[in-house]
């Protein structure tokens, strides 16, 4: 087209001028289109080149020379330093109540360690962890007694807690475990919220110093915003670690490959004691599964314990349960007691601690 313009007759000036203008406009348009395309091409090329070749530390770089950068890096969570335990409680670490009236027992035991108000205040979001591991009715003693849980929730409520969450990750299907054990009804009726596990609820938790569960999938959702943690566990015989009580109870907060734990069950339980330092624990000795644990399944495996223990030291509470509720006084305490005690996580010689014991109706 430019050539045609060059050959224009000089006599047709006006026309030629007009044509020149149009030719120029045409050229300009072409140039613009060309520059635009060039701009797009070079923009894409430079962008792609940058993303592909820029050193990994530069922003927006995609470069991954050895394949390490592309690996998933899951976020690791931490529980608050020092756990949820109170400092310098200044009361007896062990409150024991014997009797039949569950409400009175729970109150009596907690009063033994200074009363609920010492532990729960009005701004608190309290996580309560019962043991709901199996789809069994409560009378079989494999799960926390719902009456004990309800009494505890009422007390915590009375102390003014903002929110009470009841949670567990059972071995069997969570919904039916909560339903058939009576925990669901008891907790909802008493005014707590139940959080059942779903696949997205688990996050990696770091437990510095733990032998086996240094980072392990943890049932994280209930702990978001939580300020206090109370464990309430039944007294159970256990086929492998001999006794499952308040310390073993934290097992239900973990996910992942829990079936590997049995290869060093005592090490794991001592890790659990390290992982979660509760505000206090309640040992539910209203029923005692004294054999065929932890699944039980027969009423003849259960007897009445008529005892509730509240403690800021789960090892002491468990040692008491071992001596007096499981009736294994004099037998060697299971290995996890020594291992946890060696980490200064508690004192299994409960008799040495200050103990407040009451007998109620």
């Amino acid at each position: 087209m430019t050539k045609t313009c060059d050959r224009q007759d000089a006599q047709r000036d006006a026309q030629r001028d007009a044509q020149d203008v149009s030719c120029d406009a045409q050229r300009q348009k072409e140039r613009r289109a060309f520059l635009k395309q060039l701009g797009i091409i070079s923009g894409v090329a430079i962008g792609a080149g940058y993303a592909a070749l820029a050193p990994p530390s530069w922003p927006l770089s995609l470069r991954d020379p050895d394949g390490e950068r592309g690996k998933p890096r899951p976020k690791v969570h931490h529980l608050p330093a020092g756990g949820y335990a109170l400092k310098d409680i200044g009361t007896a670490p062990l409150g024991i109540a014997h009797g039949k009236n569950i409400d009175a027992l729970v109150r009596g035991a907690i009063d033994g360690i200074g009363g609920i108000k010492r532990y729960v205040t009005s701004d608190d979001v309290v996580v309560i962890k019962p043991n709901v591991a199996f789809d069994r009715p409560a009378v079989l003693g494999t799960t926390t007694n719902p009456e004990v849980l309800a009494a505890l929730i009422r007390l915590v409520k009375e102390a003014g807690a903002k929110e009470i969450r009841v949670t567990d990750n059972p071995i069997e299907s969570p919904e039916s475990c909560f339903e058939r054990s009576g925990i669901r009804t008891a907790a909802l009726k008493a005014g707590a919220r139940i959080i059942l596990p779903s696949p997205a609820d688990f996050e990696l938790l770091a437990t510095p110093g733990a032998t086996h569960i240094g980072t392990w999938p943890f049932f994280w959702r209930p702990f978001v915003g939580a300020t206090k943690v109370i464990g309430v566990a039944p007294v159970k015989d256990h086929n492998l670690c001999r006794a499952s009580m308040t310390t073993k109870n934290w097992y239900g907060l973990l996910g992942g490959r829990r079936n590997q734990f049995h290869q060093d069950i005592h090490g794991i339980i001592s890790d659990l004691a390290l992982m979660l330092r509760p505000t206090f624990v309640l040992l539910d000795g209203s029923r005692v599964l004294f054999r065929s644990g932890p699944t039980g399944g027969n009423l003849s495996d259960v007897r009445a314990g008529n005892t509730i223990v509240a403690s800021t030291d789960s090892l002491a509470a468990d040692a008491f349960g071992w001596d007096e509720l499981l009736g294994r006084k004099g037998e060697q305490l299971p290995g996890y007691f020594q291992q946890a005690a060696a980490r200064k996580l508690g004192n299994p010689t409960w008799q040495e601690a200050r103990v407040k014991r009451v007998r109620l109706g």
Partner: protein
Amino acid sequence: MARAPKRYNPDQLFNPDGFRHYRRAYSHAELRWGLSILLGLIAILSWVLYRGARPDPALFAALTPMARNPPKIPTSTANGVFPKDLTPPGWRAGVITSFDTKDVYKKINGRESYYKSFGFQRLDCVRLSQRSSSATIDLELFDQEQPQNALGAYAGERGEGQVDRVTPGGVARVVRNALYLVRGRYYLRAVGSDESAATLTALKHIEARFVGAKGAAKGPGQTLPWGYTLLAKVGIGAGAVTYERENAFSFEFAKDVYAGRLGKDGPQLFVMAAASPEAAKTLAAQFHKSFSSYGDAVGKQAPGWVKDHFIGAFSTASAIKRFVVGVRAAPKLAPAQKLLVQLEQALPAENTDDEDM
């Protein structure tokens, strides 16, 4: 037409012509039918919700299994036959397990006949363990029915060169990591898992509890049986006395014999009680005859002494009132004769406390 036709635009994301239709006439009948269909749907929905709100309770309730056996309460942790405050400080006691003549084999398979030969009645076991270490002490308390039985069983397990101590109402000895103790009808063995100072202190504590316990080791004879006191009078300590309930010295007729040796190689003195003086005489004669079966009579007076063929030791037995007293295996004759006299003099009066034997 109901609505102005929209322009067909195939670039629209979804069906560009979705709600178009071509009919021109509408009818009220359709509306009426439609409303009745709506009622039907509402009825179905209500039925579904009604059903939903009425679950079969059996589907969600868990069965409460019936106990096939009545709940068995495990053995109480009460002290039972053990004295109070048995457990030393820093130790803890386990559950007491008990066995009687029928099931003691479970505990001591193969050796139960030994205890049964001493009138075994019952065995109570408990394990003490130390909190700070893995040390344990196993306590086995044998009820042997009679003090002399207990002492007999005790003496029968005494090893060479072990020294006994006489305690109020019994005897005891500590051998390395184990305490053996008799009090009344009970024979206690306390075996520690090690010989540490802590274990030994604990054993001392246990011994003190047993010896000092009131009413713990109840039974006939808080004091030692007559045979022990008698032999003690001639200088044989209770620890050196053995009691043979039957078949003493391998003599079939010799029953309920107390025997004790004076010194390591000294003569062995023995006493036994018979039902009557006549019976005692018969027994003495039987002893004499039995001694003579491997020896020769020395001198002529009765009861005569017999000198053993093989070891040259002297033995005799004589009946005094309803007792039989004797000396066995005395290395020299003269001191033995003196001893026998001493023993005869020491014999208790006619109505002793062992009338019931």
